[in-house]
């Protein structure tokens, strides 16, 4: 048992370590140190809480922590880099779930029953809000996980009257909140809490269901932010300043990240965050024309003749785990003295920065991995552009077709290069469900098949 003074000091130390952790993570040189600070801070915080006053049942707590740690270690070691978006989504759901459970736990807490008057009301309002945000985070993240794993369709799900329903439910939540406070102390209160949790869970589901696949990186980043606010709400609930600080840090930095993503897609932040409120579904103009397909031999030949090659990867590369053969191909071409660069769209894939992680995993040196804004001005001089499993991020419709749902989003302008090869599994539309005029351009040819197979075959042809 430690005294509450030591506990306060430990919490202060932990919050400083968390601030250092976050600022460490935001720069390349210090990122690893950032993780270390985070781990130390978390350990101090947990120890100070477990051995704090008023806490008993050590065995129970420690057993739970050990079991969960084993699960955590197994998950972290086993997960494939390609599955990172799903993992992060499901981890967000855990924060939401934990907050809901903590909320209910705090509601039935016997110590709380001793609170009087205004203190009691403030506390219960905090419980109510905490559970509300937690439940939204929980179900929203589960739906995001479902969409990312393909268990739920990536298409935005909207129906008539959805906005009206949301407004009605929101008003109902507030009315229930008032009833909840009036009925404190009677069994009614618990029932109201259950109903509100169900409504919040429904909100979370509707919010993420309504968001299209192309906005997925923003959704993940937004849920990340929401999980921070959730932790903060739990902090208010328990009067714990460390939770408030950490939650607010994560919440606001997650929100900034979402805004950065939205700017990259030229979408207003609120139209994404409000879950497609009042959004119409557009699919863009139907395109007339024919697409040319090509073979692995021809592509290998084009690459051998080219002097400069730009590779634009997308989620397709992640799905087929093509990053390793891509690395082999790049090494071969570089050995022949060619200039190879990668052009990464800010929202390529399903997670911000996902492509960078995959290429790093495959040992691609990151000084040739460039951002969209760096490659776009030089594309006219590129001989061959290889689009590997990207679609919406290279869609000229974003600049040319005002009816396109992604109109206005900056894209990698690959069609300005001399030759464009698009590796694609089939002619199906991309994750966002948008037609892509790029495939019909004269200098574009399509190479059908799984990205990994295709790159392997090209590799064997370059060898000869």
């Amino acid at each position, binding site marked *: 048992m430690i005294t509450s003074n030591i506990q306060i000091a430990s919490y202060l130390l932990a919050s400083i370590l968390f601030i250092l*952790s976050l600022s460490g*993570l*935001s*720069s390349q040189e210090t*990122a690893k140190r950032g*993780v270390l600070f*985070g781990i130390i801070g*978390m350990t101090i915080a947990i120890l100070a*809480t*477990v051995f704090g006053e*008023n*806490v008993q049942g050590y065995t*129970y*707590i420690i057993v*739970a922590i050990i079991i*969960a*740690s084993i*699960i*955590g270690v197994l998950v972290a*070691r086993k*997960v494939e880099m390609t599955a990172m978006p799903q993992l*992060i989504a499901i*981890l967000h759901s*855990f*924060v939401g779930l*934990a*907050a809901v*459970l*903590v909320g209910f*736990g*705090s509601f*039935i*807490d*016997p*110590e709380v029953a001793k609170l009087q008057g205004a203190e009691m009301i403030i506390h219960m309002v905090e419980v109510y809000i905490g559970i509300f945000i937690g439940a939204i985070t929980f179900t929203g993240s589960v739906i995001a996980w479902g969409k990312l794993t393909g268990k739920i369709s990536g298409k935005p799900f909207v129906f008539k009257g959805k906005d009206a329903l949301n407004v009605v439910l929101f008003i109902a939540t507030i009315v229930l909140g008032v009833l909840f406070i009036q009925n404190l102390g009677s069994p009614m209160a618990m029932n109201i809490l259950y109903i509100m949790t169900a409504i919040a869970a429904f909100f979370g589901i509707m919010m993420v269901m309504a968001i299209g696949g192309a906005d997925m990186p923003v959704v993940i980043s937004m849920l990340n932010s929401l*999980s*921070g606010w*959730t932790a*903060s709400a739990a902090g*208010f609930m328990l009067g714990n*300043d460390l939770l408030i600080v*950490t*939650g607010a*840090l994560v919440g*606001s*930095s*997650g929100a*900034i*990240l979402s805004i950065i993503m939205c700017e990259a897609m030229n979408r207003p932040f609120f139209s994404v965050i409000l879950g497609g409120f009042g959004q119409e579904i557009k699919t863009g103009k139907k395109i007339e024309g024919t697409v040319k397909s090509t073979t692995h031999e021809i592509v290998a030949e084009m690459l051998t003749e080219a002097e400069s090659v730009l590779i634009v990867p997308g989620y397709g590369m992640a799905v087929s785990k093509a990053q390793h053969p891509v690395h082999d191909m790049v090494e071969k071409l570089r050995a022949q003295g060619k200039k190879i660069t990668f052009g*990464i769209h*800010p929202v390529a894939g399903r997670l911000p*920065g*996902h492509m*960078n992680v995959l290429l*790093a995993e495959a*040992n691609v*040196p*990151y*000084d040739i*991995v460039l951002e969209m804004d760096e490659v776009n001005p030089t594309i006219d001089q590129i001989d061959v552009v290889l689009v590997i499993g990207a679609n919406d991020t290279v869609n000229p419709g974003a600049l040319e077709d005002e009816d396109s749902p992604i109109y206005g989003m900056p894209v990698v302008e690959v069609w300005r290069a001399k030759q464009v090869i698009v590796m694609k599994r089939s002619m199906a539309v991309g994750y966002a469900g948008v037609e892509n005029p790029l495939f019909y351009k004269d200098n574009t040819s399509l190479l059908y098949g799984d990205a990994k197979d295709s790159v392997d075959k090209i590799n064997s042809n370059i060898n000869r």
Partner: protein
Amino acid sequence: MSPFILLIIFAASTGLGYVIIKNVPSLLHTPLMSGMNALSGITILGAIAAVGLSVLSKNSNEILLGQIFGGLAIIAATVNVVGGFLVTHRMLKMFNKNKKGRNR
């Protein structure tokens, strides 16, 4: 602590988070996100408190509920913390490895 002070702490941390993250390179978005995710597992403190307090209760029904809610919450939050930090570390290790390759 009074709710007013807690609100000030909240506002200050919100501002701090904004300042820290404003200029993060896109290369680090994924590790940053999983790292932040691990940090939001701080809800574990709430879970521990919930379990710890429930044991003090005289009402056996409340003890049981508190332990179920709290225990599940501890598990959910710990998976988050441990999994989040480890996976962040794994990703950053890849970046560092390649940095050496470049300097060679």
